[in-house]
């Protein structure tokens, strides 16, 4: 791609020393993008925009928030009542967390459907999973800051997970807490880290985009672009498509902010933290419930390894294992469109993850329709989660007979439009 030459002397002076203008031209304007991306490809840019919204609202909130056990809860309410538009900034940040995860989960499942993690995009995928992990840590830390009952008890339960590790467990927990229970030092460091991690995510997103721009976007056909006939410049085609998607997304996002701002919140978090009183039902936010369900699914010791430790390993493992997906999936065909069996197990896996999320909301002892305990459902769903990734993906790649994808994107597109014309 040849960049235009600039005549403005200031631009030329800067460009010679730091080529920001040709960089923008190459990566945001001319950047060749497959012409057949569907709306599922909007969620990457939406995730980036949501991250920015979270950072901006977060910085403003930090100006008014007090990270102290005696004042944190009150300072959040002060933001809601006395800070100009504080309620708006806080509700955007609060619901933004849920929106961010929703967008990122859709983004990940889009990648799983169209095989976006396959060669040569493995690094892109791995960085994505690291972003997800960092997001989870950030969300958890942030959830503790309002110092409500759920904040406090989530902090207690999650930090206590580390005590499952033999010998080093208890010292790690004390070290994380900065004391012998979740208390003011814990809140202070959580605030500090919650402010830090989004910038780490920002840096990771930069790497994610860098890796993306090396081999460019995958596409619904899962085939490589063969030349300029297969691509269109990013601007104006995808800038306008992303902007339209952003409009739809903001309608949903702000719909929650303005008309159901506490939809995702547990009422218990509007009760100030009380270390002497455990809530009857401790649940994380919806976006972490699938992992919570996996943690609680393991109720049996294996040999000398206690159930709790296996639960913790299974929970962390359920995220970390995603790093291996590019190698666990042995099929050479990327897009599920041309993989008749994968296309079906994919939906099964998606449903399995939703079931895990639903189980995580319920107490394990509770019965579903009076017939089967949530614990049992969670165990089956956890087993299938790992079965899908560790067995189904590798075996399917060997056994399945994929249909052959079209020769090229432009060939497929012309064929499609031919059919449309005929039909018309």
């Amino acid at each position, binding site marked *: 791609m040849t960049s235009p030459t600039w005549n403005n002397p200031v631009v030329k002076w800067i460009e010679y020393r730091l080529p920001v203008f040709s960089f923008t031209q190459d990566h945001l304007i001319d950047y060749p993008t497959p*012409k057949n991306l569907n709306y599922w490809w909007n969620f990457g840019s939406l995730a980036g925009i949501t991250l920015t919204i979270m950072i901006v609202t977060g910085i403003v909130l930090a100006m008014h928030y007090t990270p102290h056990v005696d004042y944190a809860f*009150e300072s959040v*309410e*002060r933001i*809601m*009542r006395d800070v100009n538009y504080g*309620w*708006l900034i806080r*509700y955007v940040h609060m619901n933004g967390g849920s929106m961010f995860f929703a967008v990122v989960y859709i983004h990940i499942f889009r990648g799983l459907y169209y095989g976006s993690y396959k060669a040569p995009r493995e690094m892109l995928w791995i960085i994505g999973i690291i972003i997800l992990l960092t997001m989870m840590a950030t969300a958890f830390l942030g959830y503790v800051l309002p110092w409500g009952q759920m904040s406090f*008890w989530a902090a*207690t*339960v999650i930090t*206590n*997970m580390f*005590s499952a590790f033999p010998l080093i*467990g*208890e010292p790690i*927990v004390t070290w994380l807490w900065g004391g*012998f*229970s979740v208390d003011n030092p814990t809140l202070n460091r959580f605030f500090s880290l919650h402010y830090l991690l989004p910038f780490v995510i920002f840096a990771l997103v930069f790497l994610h985009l860098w890796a993306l721009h090396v081999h460019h976007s995958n596409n619904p056909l899962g085939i490589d672009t063969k030349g300029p006939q297969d691509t*269109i410049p990013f601007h*104006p*085609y995808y800038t*306008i*498509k992303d*902007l*339209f998607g952003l*409009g*739809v997304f*903001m*309608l949903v996002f*702000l*719909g929650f*902010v*303005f*008309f159901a*701002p*506490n939809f995702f*919140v547990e*009422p*218990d978090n*509007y*009760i100030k933290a009380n270390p002497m009183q*455990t809530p*009857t*039902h*401790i649940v994380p936010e919806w976006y972490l419930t699938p992992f919570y369900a996996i943690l*609680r699914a393991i109720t049996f010791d294996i040999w000398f390894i206690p159930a*709790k430790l296996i639960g913790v390993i299974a929970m962390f493992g359920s995220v970390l294992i995603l790093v291996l997906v590019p190698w666990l999936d042995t099929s050479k065909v990327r897009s599920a469109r041309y993989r008749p069996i994968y296309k079906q197990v994919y939906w099964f896996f998606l449903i399995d993850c939703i079931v895990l999320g639903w189980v995580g909301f319920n*107490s*394990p*002892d*509770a*019965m579903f329709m009076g017939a089967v305990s949530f614990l049992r459902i969670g165990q089956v769903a956890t087993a299938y989660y790992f079965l899908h990734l560790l067995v189904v993906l590798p075996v399917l790649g060997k056994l399945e007979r994929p249909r052959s994808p079209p020769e090229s994107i432009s060939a497929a*597109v012309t064929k499609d*439009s031919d059919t449309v014309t005929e039909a018309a």
Partner: protein
Amino acid sequence: MGKFVLGAVLALTLGAGTAFAEVPKPAAQAWSFNGVFGTFDRAALRRGLQVYTEVCAACHSLSLVYYRHLQSVGFSEEEIKTLAREFEVEDGPNDDGEMFTRPAKPTDPFASPFPNAQAARAANAGALPPDLSVMTKARKGGEDYLHAVLVGYRDEVPAGVEVMEGLFFNEYFSGQQIAMPPPLADGAVEYADGTKATVQQMSMDVVTFLAWAAEPTLEDRKRLGIKTLLFLLVLTAMLYALKRKIWSDVH
């Protein structure tokens, strides 16, 4: 310690489903602030403030709400001053290093009935009356639940239910045994606007007031929300049209 806490937490979450008798779901009420265009009924707010001040405030604090906040729902500066003056708050230290009490000012938070949690427990047979500032957001079921509890006391306890000493049977309270004595009785307050002070009426009024106390920016939020979403709707439609136009040469 760590293991103990996790164990306790798991045990509690495990036990939660079975520990209590079935509590009926509170009926949905037609609140004035429901819906996209809902606003707080100003008359109900005034009556609700009266119920809070004359009944609830004997035990429950409202410490996150300031008298001056009432201005946003139509109370005049004079009214607020007069209201605040009725309460004594501690201030100080003065130049002699002494704490002193003075009448509350509009810039003070609602005066608390007890100086601290211990005093509150001591005066209430060991039970702590919770602060009501965000109560409607702090309970599952919100306003409907609060109303259901306020009118949910029953003189006749169902067969098989043993109400513990010092507790009261309440159909809607979790566990159905509540330490708060029935707070409302017909005619407990005399409304200035002549409305008949039935338990039902007072409950609806005070819950409206508490809904405002928990979410005083609700009206601003909805007003701005309607404008923002309408704007976004038009903008998004235009972006869609533009997208169609720009992409028309691709397929």
